[in-house]
């Protein structure tokens, strides 16, 4: 199928990336400044890409919706970043990291991409250290490691409980250096609202200046989207409030295929929902599962009791029971589903009965409270701030929450979408995690894409584009004018409805519908129900939403309205994809497809492929499903077992 050419280089897997880099076209350093690259997003993927491309000499324009690139949601990652350094000498290798990631993704990721990710992982740690990232160290002065879900080796590097902030500050400092050098121009508080395609190539974007409201056009030789994930389609998630699908969805509507939108990750260790007013969910780093033991009462009658009143014999440490070799470190999808099963079984705890215990008593008696405080002090503090409970004394209560989206815009080995000139990096693309992402692998992927992959592959495209200014597309091109007019019209439309319901009320309604019908467990019936309901909510939105204020200044309701409008379209594609994937794999669990013991049942014969959706301009439900077959030449397809 020519339409989805993944451009995977030939040759043995461990030689592909080297060979590809050698065969990639180069651009003479003196000519690079003649090329403009737009990077939308300043998280690990976008920030690292913009800084590196700037350093290489390209003329970069970088955009983010926050007031500073340092605030991209990568900042919130707590636990750590993987790399196959094998510093602890516990048997790790590039191949093992590659294997674990393919297996963790339930055999739904592209081998060649994953191998490359594992291959560059070590260089990421070195680059971050060189930039001043204060990774945790041992007394001997060497870097410390810890283990994370889905792995039996210690390959996770961390910086207290704020690895994401420290890695992002590293990328941000490199970006700041390039801004000072004049190679990168930064546009904060700018929201991308459309992609501009000229003669079939992505040539620019339309943004709204969030302070003045002005709709601005920017032209470039290529566009990189590094706009993060779409978890906020569920309303409640661990994402920041501003995280959105808008940039990716707008690109999709202009021709970029959306791959595997149904692959969403529900993280097992989050603080449970406690009220209708709740605006977001907070993650407790998965690293807690290194020392915390997950349990629920064996007997339903015990659920209302204080945990200290439930004797050891009456506790069900269900992860240890079901998955003896991985125990509390079983991968996320498996742990989340097990928590849901326990609660569905009526054995959940807390006032809502929608949570399970994560208990540190054993670790505290074994290692002492101080060691636990040193390892997780900030997480315990955060837990205390939110719940007013002291987890050193009573077990934490946790429940799964929407956390990460493996699906995203389809890209080839160069990280270019099917739409020429559009590159996609970080969580916004679909590339490396298959149907489930292992902990500490998103930071790795974002930085791999940004620091190493894109800076090597983007020249392949740029070399095919005109170098001289006179031949380049500018914002005077009619396509730009048209796109600006469309964005302005849409903005004015949102402001003119003046209905009765707030933007937030629609977002909550959609989120709940998806959580119940396209969340941890999905069925044909639930998905059909959601597919029937989404267009109804969408129609009402466009008739009855109330967006106050003006188009010409800071207007947060207007910003949210635009994002919710896009979520309302995207949600339909997500459910459609979930409905058509008649198997269970990773984060996508179809109740019709399970083994008698409740484990997910893949169907490799029919579904060992990527589903990449082509937009239908008339009707989302008529989107066309394309297929990229996944060929496993190195890893043997097997039932994923963590028992």
């Amino acid at each position: 199928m020519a339409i989805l050419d993944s451009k995977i280089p030939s040759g043995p897997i461990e030689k592909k990336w080297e060979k590809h880099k050698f065969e990639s076209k180069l651009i003479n350093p003196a000519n690079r400044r003649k090329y403009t690259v737009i990077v939308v997003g300043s998280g690990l993927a976008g920030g690292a890409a913009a800084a590196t491309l700037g350093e290489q000499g390209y003329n970069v324009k970088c955009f983010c919706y926050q007031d500073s690139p340092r605030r991209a949601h990568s900042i919130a990652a707590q636990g750590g970043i993987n790399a196959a350094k094998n510093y602890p000498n516990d048997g790790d290798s590039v191949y093992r990291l590659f294997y674990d990631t393919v297996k963790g993704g339930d055999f739904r990721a592209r081998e060649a991409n994953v191998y490359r990710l594992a291959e560059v992982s070590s260089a990421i740690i070195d680059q971050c250290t060189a930039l001043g990232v204060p990774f945790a160290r041992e007394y001997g002065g060497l870097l410390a490691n810890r283990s994370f879900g889905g792995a039996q080796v210690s390959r996770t590097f961390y910086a207290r409980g704020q690895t994401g902030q420290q890695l992002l500050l590293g990328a941000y400092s490199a970006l700041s250096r390039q801004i000072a050098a004049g190679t990168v121009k930064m546009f904060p508080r700018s929201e991308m609202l459309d992609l501009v395609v000229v003669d079939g190539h992505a040539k620019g974007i339309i943004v709204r200046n969030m302070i003045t409201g002005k709709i601005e056009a920017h032209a470039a030789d290529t566009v990189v989207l590094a706009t993060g994930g779409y978890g906020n389609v569920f309303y409640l998630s661990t994402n920041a409030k501003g995280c959105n699908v808008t940039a990716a969805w707008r690109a999709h509507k202009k021709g970029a295929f959306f791959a595997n939108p149904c692959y969403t990750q529900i993280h097992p260790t989050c603080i449970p929902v406690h009220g209708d007013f709740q605006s977001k969910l907070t993650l407790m780093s998965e690293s807690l599962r290194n020392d915390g033991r997950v349990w629920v009462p064996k007997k339903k009658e015990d659920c209302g009791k204080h945990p200290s009143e439930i004797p050891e014999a009456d506790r069900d440490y269900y992860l240890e029971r079901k998955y003896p070799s991985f125990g509390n470190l079983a991968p996320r999808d498996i742990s989340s589903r097990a928590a849901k099963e326990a609660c569905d079984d009526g054995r959940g705890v807390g006032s809502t009965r929608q949570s399970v215990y994560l208990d540190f008593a054993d670790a505290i008696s074994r290692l002492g409270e101080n060691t636990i405080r040193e390892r997780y002090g900030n997480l315990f503090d955060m837990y205390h701030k939110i719940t007013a409970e002291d987890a050193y004394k009573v077990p934490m209560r946790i429940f799964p929450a929407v956390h990460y989206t493996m699906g995203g815009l389809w890209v080839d080995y160069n990280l270019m979408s099917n739409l020429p000139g559009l590159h996609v990096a970080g969580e916004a693309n679909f590339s490396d995690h298959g149907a489930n992402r292992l902990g500490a692998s998103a930071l790795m992927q974002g930085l791999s894409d940004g620091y190493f992959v894109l800076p090597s592959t983007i020249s392949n495209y740029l070399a095919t584009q005109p170098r001289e200014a006179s031949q380049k597309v500018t914002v005077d091109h009619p396509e730009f004018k048209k796109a600006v007019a469309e964005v302005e019209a849409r903005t004015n439309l949102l402001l003119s409805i003046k209905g009765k319901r707030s933007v937030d009320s629609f977002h909550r309604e959609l989120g709940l519908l998806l959580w119940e019908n396209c969340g941890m467990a999905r069925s044909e019936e639930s998905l059909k129900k959601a597919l029937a309901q989404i267009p109804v909510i969408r129609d009402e939105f466009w008739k009855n939403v109330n967006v106050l204020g003006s188009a010409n200044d800071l207007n947060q309701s207007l910003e949210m309205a635009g994002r919710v409008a896009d979520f309302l379209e995207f949600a339909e594609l997500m459910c459609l994809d979930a409905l058509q994937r008649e198997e269970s794999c990773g984060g996508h669990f179809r109740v019709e497809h399970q083994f008698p013991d409740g484990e997910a049942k893949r169907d490799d014969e029919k579904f060992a492929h990527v589903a990449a959706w082509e937009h239908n301009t008339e009707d989302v439900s008529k989107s066309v499903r394309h297929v990229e077959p996944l060929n496993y030449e190195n890893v043997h397809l097997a039932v994923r077992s963590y028992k």
Partner: protein
Amino acid sequence: MSDTINLTLKVWRQPNASTPGKFVEYPAKNIPTDCSFLEMLDIVNETLVAQNIEPVAFDHDCREGICGMCSLVINGVAHGPEKATTTCQLHMRHFKDGDTVYVEPWRAVAFPLIKDLVVDRTAFERIQQAGGYISARNGSAPDSNSVPIPKQNADCAMDAAACIGCGACVAACPNSSAMLFVSAKVSHLALLPQGQPERTRRAVKMVKTMDAEGFGNCTNYYECEAVCPAEIKSSFISMLNREYVFAAAREAVSEI
């Protein structure tokens, strides 16, 4: 379900920098004590929308206390009454039924107001761009373990690196000084071996930019330390002072 309280809010409203602002009173009714301060504002904003009143604009994003976007002065205190807590992590259980709560933006010359409770903190960006980095070209990094760093130094650098760039220190300071922020940035890199080559240059340039941006002088009030959600210690300010004196002296003899 948690308990609920009723409050009276006095919220600063100002359409833009060139129009004068004022406090406007809004009731905040039936606020669950388990919700955060920003969720309380969400509830109030929903009631405003229902009355066709434009909702109050305030900055926020992660709502986890790490992105540094939220920025409110609550009853005269930047980020409110709880120690080491950002506005988004402040929970309503710390307020009493019947309280009157004043909500204001960061106020500082170097942080011009944009709208209501939202201010422009890009002065911090320019300080960072002046030297808050290590010039490590991508792809040229040595193995991370080739230079061991004593745990103590790494931990101390980490303490400084924890700054979330929120600007509360500036908002709290009677002089609107940015010394705590700048000292955290300078110290983080000065404490690491990788940061040594540009150490003097960095300190001088960042301090000069800070002055040029209109932040005030530090006269040791230490209000900054009291409000800092990341618990950045004022001892970093002393460290910066030493760095700066040393650096400025070297600059005077034009070594850098």
